[in-house]
């Protein structure tokens, strides 16, 4: 017995999976059409202060952006950027989308921080067996809706704070048609250089433009004597910038007053976007 192929059988393709996925992508593109620059903030390593820097960067550039800045917290399981920007829910839902929360300096924010109950982890409905199989798809679907269904409006810059790891940049890079590029955040150590280097390599391989590197915690700034002392051994920021032929946008010392350094970083960032 020989069967006909799927397309040989004259019956409607009821599920239209391909068309539905194409429609999802069209919605993302339509929503982001008014966003001039979409920038990923990434790091292969956790604990480098990426969310803190994303929030500081948003605040540093918002004065230079007539149409404003948005921040999408793509760290779905461990959201922090909303609190750093003093944004909170509930979120208003209109027929045409969900209004983002508005934080300090008028920065628009979307984060699972607004969706998850206090102290509860990110959990999904449905069968719990072998959940790891589809968890990645659920997270990508969530990020897709954060892009397509949030009423971002007109923005000069949308910063996307990625979770640690190389996957996020590659997955989101494929979803955002007008992605400007990515900024990598590292600390000075050799371990961080190796980890962030892998992420930058994966991003470049996926066709994502690398805009620059920020080295965070480049020493400890004493607020008393204003001297900067080393905090970690290493020179990862310079090494990564050399290796990938990108700009070192800033080396930020650890300081209780983050605003001291964020302003300079904002200028350097806007320069590479120009």
């Amino acid at each position, binding site marked *: 017995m020989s069967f006909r192929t799927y397309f040989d059988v004259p019956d409607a393709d009821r599920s239209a999976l391909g068309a539905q996925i194409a429609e999802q992508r069209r919605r993302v593109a339509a929503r982001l059409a008014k966003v001039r620059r979409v920038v990923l903030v990434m790091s292969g390593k956790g604990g480098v202060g990426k969310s803190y820097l994303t929030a500081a960067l948003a605040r540093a550039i918002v004065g230079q952006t007539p149409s404003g800045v948005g921040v999408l917290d793509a760290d779905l399981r461990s959201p922090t950027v909303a609190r750093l920007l003093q944004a909170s829910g*509930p979120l208003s839902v209109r027929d045409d989308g969900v209004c983002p929360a508005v934080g300090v300096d008028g920065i628009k924010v979307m984060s699972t921080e607004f969706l998850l*109950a206090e102290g509860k982890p990110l959990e999904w409905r*449905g069968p719990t067996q072998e959940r790891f199989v589809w968890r990645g798809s659920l997270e990508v679907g969530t990020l897709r809706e954060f892009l397509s*269904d949030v009423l971002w409006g007109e923005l000069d810059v949308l910063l996307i704070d990625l979770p640690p790891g190389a996957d996020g940049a590659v997955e989101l890079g494929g979803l955002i048609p007008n992605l400007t590029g990515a900024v990598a955040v590292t600390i000075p150590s050799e371990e961080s250089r190796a980890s962030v280097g892998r992420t930058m390599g994966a991003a470049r391989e996926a066709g994502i433009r690398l805009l620059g590197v920020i080295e965070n915690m480049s020493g400890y700034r004493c607020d008393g004597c204003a001297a900067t002392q080393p905090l970690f051994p290493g020179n990862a920021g310079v090494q990564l910038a050399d290796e990938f032929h990108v700009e070192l946008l800033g080396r930020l010392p650890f300081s209780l007053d983050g605003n001291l350094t964020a302003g300079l970083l904002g200028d350097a960032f806007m320069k590479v976007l120009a």
Partner: protein
Amino acid sequence: MKFLCIGCNQAMVFSERQEPGDGTFAAAFTCPQCGRAVALLANPMETQLVGALGVKIGGKVLDEAPMEFVRSKMMGRDDAFVDEGSVTDNGQRTTDNASSVRARWSVDAQARLDRVPAFVRGMVRKIYTDYALERRIAEITPAVMDQARAELGLEGM
């Protein structure tokens, strides 16, 4: 997915879908020539795998509600969303200019809607309202909700 009646060498025609519980998805197909009927039963993992793509199993019927994927898949806090155009005690939408052409909610249907978790309630209301609008149904009753559930596959809504 298509079903072929081997005896007739005919494509079988979709006749019904159900989500009978525990995540099972059922779709029935009938041969237009001999009348033979078969049902496909997808297990919860298969259903979840396809659902995780954010696509409607069995095909898209209504336009997506805002954040429909997030609201139907994520376990979220009750006060996460404020749905503009919320329904008042008499069943009218408060901020929707088109409320005059939208369906009324019967008391029983509203009571049933109120039992839906708040995280998804506004979205569920919109889906039923759009369903009724598309079919020119004047009043949403529990029977209409059952009909919509069967047709759209609104498991747990």
